[in-house]
């Protein structure tokens, strides 16, 4: 009798541990997948940039300062060795592109260019996708952190070697419409 109770408790314990283990792994995979979604969008944006710069150069060749800034941010993204550098370069590119679009406001011919309009829609939608992908990443990280810091996940997180992950800081400037400063 005592043996059966012992075996029953043991079986319940095993089932519980397996369930928690699977939940933690699922949540970890979810936010890692979310991370790769951000990466896909950042790469797509970087791919659109040369095309955009060429188009704008055709109308506003002398705005070289802005082109250099965009090129530098793209270079920084290519050279990024870790996620932190990558995120910083991505923010740089957002700002540089914001300036580029602000500058193009002053060129009506450019704004009427079909190719430019298309690129503008594609880039603003990529920006939007990046914002949404980051938001989902943070949601997924929060769920993961909650799972490994609360009972019962906290008992398994240590043995599994899982640690709390940090949220992505979402720069406020990302979603602001660039302000155009004329004069000075």
């Amino acid at each position, binding site marked *: 009798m005592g043996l059966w109770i012992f075996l029953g408790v043991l079986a319940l314990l095993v089932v519980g541990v397996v369930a928690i283990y699977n939940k933690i792994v699922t949540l970890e995979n979810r936010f890692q997948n979310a991370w790769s979604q951000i990466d896909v969008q950042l790469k797509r944006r970087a791919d659109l940039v040369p095309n955009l710069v060429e188009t704008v150069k055709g109308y506003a060749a002398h705005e070289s300062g802005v082109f250099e800034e965009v090129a530098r941010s793209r270079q920084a993204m290519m050279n990024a060795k870790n996620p932190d550098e990558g995120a910083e370069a991505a923010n740089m590119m957002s700002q540089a592109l914001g300036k580029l679009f602000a500058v193009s406001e002053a060129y009506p011919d450019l704004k009427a260019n079909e190719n430019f309009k298309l690129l503008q829609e*594609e880039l603003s939608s990529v920006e939007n*996708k990046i*914002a949404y992908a980051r938001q989902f990443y*943070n949601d997924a990280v929060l769920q993961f952190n909650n799972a490994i810091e609360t009972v019962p996940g906290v008992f398994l997180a240590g043995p599994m070697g899982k640690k709390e992950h940090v949220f992505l800081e979402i720069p406020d400037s990302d979603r602001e419409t660039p302000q155009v400063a004329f004069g000075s």
Partner: protein
Amino acid sequence: MSRPRQQRTPEAVTDRTTGRRIDLYATQTANRRASWALFLAMAGLLAAVGWLLAQAFDPAGAGLFVGVALLVAGVHAAVALAYSDKIALAAAGARKATRDEHRYLVNVSEAVALGAGVPTPRVFVIDDPSPNAFATGRNPQNAAIAFTTGLLEILDRQELEGVVAHELAHVRNYDVRFLSLLAATVGALLVVRDLVMRWAFFGRRRSVGGGGGGGGNAQAKAVAAVALIVLLIVAPLLGTLLRLAVGRKREYLADATAAHITRNPEGLARALEKLRDWRGEPLKVSEGVRHMFFVNPNLKANAAGWFSTHPPIDDRIDRLRRM
């Protein structure tokens, strides 16, 4: 900052009307469980019908009757799930949205799907000036969302994001699967009811006329027949009421989920306002698919009531504004 994106309470939103917190991730699991429970209930109900039928006509063949009833239940549910999206899209006259023609809609859908954490759905358009939308598909991997051209014309980007998020919320919450199963349940019961009615009025008369009645307890047979008829009349009605009630609740939940996905309840609220104030020819779709739309295509029917498929629009706007 055009919208607050760093709200740090993503797993739950508070419904201020009822004061309850809705756990958004738990609803998925709950819905999947409810789908199974519903399927089992349907199978049980049909088995009961089969058993009663056997008692009323031929107690020796009970096994056969129950077996046939269960087979009907299984096939009906499988077909309803497998073809739900194709039937819905065809019934609404939807065609695939191409990136070239509807770049804006496709981009917005892809973005919101990223925010909702579901695979990019197939996107369709319906050529109709009346603004509306719906989602279909048995799971997020097979989801399709459709929008009328009228909707695309009158909404701005934030409003469209709200509507897309609402539809993707139905997808992520497995609402479509649940409601398809529920509709299939009611459908299967109606099929069985019609068959039984036919047997009761024709088959039985013939057997009585032939003078054969295999003996047995005539009283028990009569009781079984009455129970059967009551069950077959009441069950589909209850099923329909349940479907409508559950559907209305799910509209509120999808609105709340959409507000969470976009972090922008105002966009969806404005979209609902525009749809409420829109005047024109209503969307022509059959009665059977009305419940799945974003707002009831019959605009006058967007009011409260037991038999309404949607909650009142004003109430939905009100709840969004108070989030």
